[in-house]
């Protein structure tokens, strides 16, 4: 069944959408889109490491992204630079270092376009295993930290005062972010992963009235984007990542009409 590259890509994409849906909601709620971008940029370094030391790409990206996240947290504590400057610093320097390292690895042929924008041809059955088991693990952990994470998103002090340990939830969530980037990099590409997190969630915000509904619609939006995007990628011979994100954008635009309607109803 998984012999066909297109079926593999579809199964991989569906697995990714299940995970990016709920995580993307938290990215939007907690204003972490640039944080996600930074981790994704640093993923290039993870990919080069995987090739150099012959490691699994997902595991290598996960490790590097986690390290970058830790460095970021330390820098936030120890310097007075504003958060966005630190994110920019880490994002672009890790991307640059990644590209420089690629320059040195002349013995390997890199498909840079595939790394940046995703490549459905690159998805093999091992990747499917990584995406679905990794994805299931991410969702289980997210379910476990859901209450403290949501409570501290609403108000950190409330969560802390009522004994929910928001700092631990935040640290775990950071690791989950690194993990979701690791499992989706081959498919979506490192420049577009944040789009996969944010756009379906933003679309879901326009049509939801509770956190749970937003998560549900965000998953549905992600699934539709993957299916529509991959079919059009096949049809028009375009890169998989951009096609999926473009499909998500169309869904987002459609969701704006729902907002317009509800504003009209109110007036």
């Amino acid at each position, binding site marked *: 069944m998984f012999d066909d590259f297109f079926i593999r890509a579809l199964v991989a994409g569906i697995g990714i959408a299940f995970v990016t849906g709920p995580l993307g909601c938290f990215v939007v709620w907690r*204003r972490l889109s640039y944080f996600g971008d930074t981790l994704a940029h640093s993923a290039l370094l993870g990919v080069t490491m995987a090739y150099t030391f012959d490691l699994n790409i997902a595991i290598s990206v996960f490790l590097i992204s986690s390290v970058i996240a830790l460095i970021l947290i330390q820098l936030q504590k120890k310097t007075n630079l504003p958060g966005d400057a630190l994110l920019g610093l880490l994002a672009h320097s890790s991307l640059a270092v990644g590209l420089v390292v690629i320059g040195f690895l002349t013995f390997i042929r890199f498909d840079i376009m595939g790394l940046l924008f995703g490549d459905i041809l690159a998805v093999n059955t091992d990747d499917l295993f990584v995406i679905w088991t990794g994805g299931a693990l991410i969702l289980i952990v997210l379910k476990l930290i859901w209450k403290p994470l949501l409570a501290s998103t609403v108000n950190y002090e409330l969560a*802390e*005062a009522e004994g929910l340990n928001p700092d631990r939830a935040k640290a775990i969530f950071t690791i989950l972010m690194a993990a979701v980037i690791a499992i989706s990099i081959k498919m979506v590409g490192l420049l577009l992963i944040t789009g996969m997190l944010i756009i379906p969630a933003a679309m879901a*915000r326009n049509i939801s009235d*509770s956190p749970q*509904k937003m998560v549900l619609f965000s998953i549905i939006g992600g699934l539709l984007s993957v299916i529509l995007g991959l079919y059009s990628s096949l049809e028009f011979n375009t890169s998989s990542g951009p096609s999926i994100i473009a499909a998500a954008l169309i869904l987002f635009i459609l969701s704006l009409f729902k907002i317009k309607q509800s504003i009209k109803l109110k007036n």
Partner: protein
Amino acid sequence: MNSNSNILVKLNNAGFRQSEKWLVEGVSLTVEKGKIVTLIGPNGSGKSTTAKIALGIYKNIEGSVEKYTTKVGYVPQKISIDWTLPIRVYDFMLLTETIEDSAIDEALSLTGVIHLKNKNLGSLSGGEFQRVLIARAISKKPELLVLDEPVQGVDYTGEIALYELIKKISDTLNCGILLISHDLHMVMSATDHVICLNGHVCCSGSPSYVAKNNEYKALFGEKASQILTTYEHKHDHVHSDEGEIKKN
């Protein structure tokens, strides 16, 4: 049972410093079951900071905090709900603890906002939001209730009703309350212990003691010390030995 088992939270000479500036220092206080302790003081006197020390929100403090309960309800002074998070009053009630629907309805009815149950939190007025905050804190049936200016933005009649509710909750749930309030009338009428702060503890004791204290007069003015007497003249109910309120 010794008397210590009634203690819910105890601050020993506690203080908190933020970038070399003391927000508050040298505060000792005890909140016991069924008692209301009130913090008063001017803006920036460290009332909210003291509450946050008691709650364990601030970690690197001077002195020590002993906390003997984990069942805490907190009404923070400020909360802003980001538009990106769609959340109804109902979802907010379940934010930190899973409670039964009947308990949610009861708490929302007590604070008079049951009709807002399915409304979006962002669409509430300031006073409505405060009522929801109080409802959320009491619906958990906490042992320790920390209320940081709980009735800000609530209309005058609502304010009185809510303060009566708070007093009633302390009696029925037998929970300890740490209250921050600007309303000296309320402070003087329903409180067991008043702590007057101004970066440190200016004076503390029973309401009548504090009202006569010179430091209190210096902070709040001569008029404020007359509030107690004014209040006593207005008394329209008495407290029986069992703690019940009887109307005159």
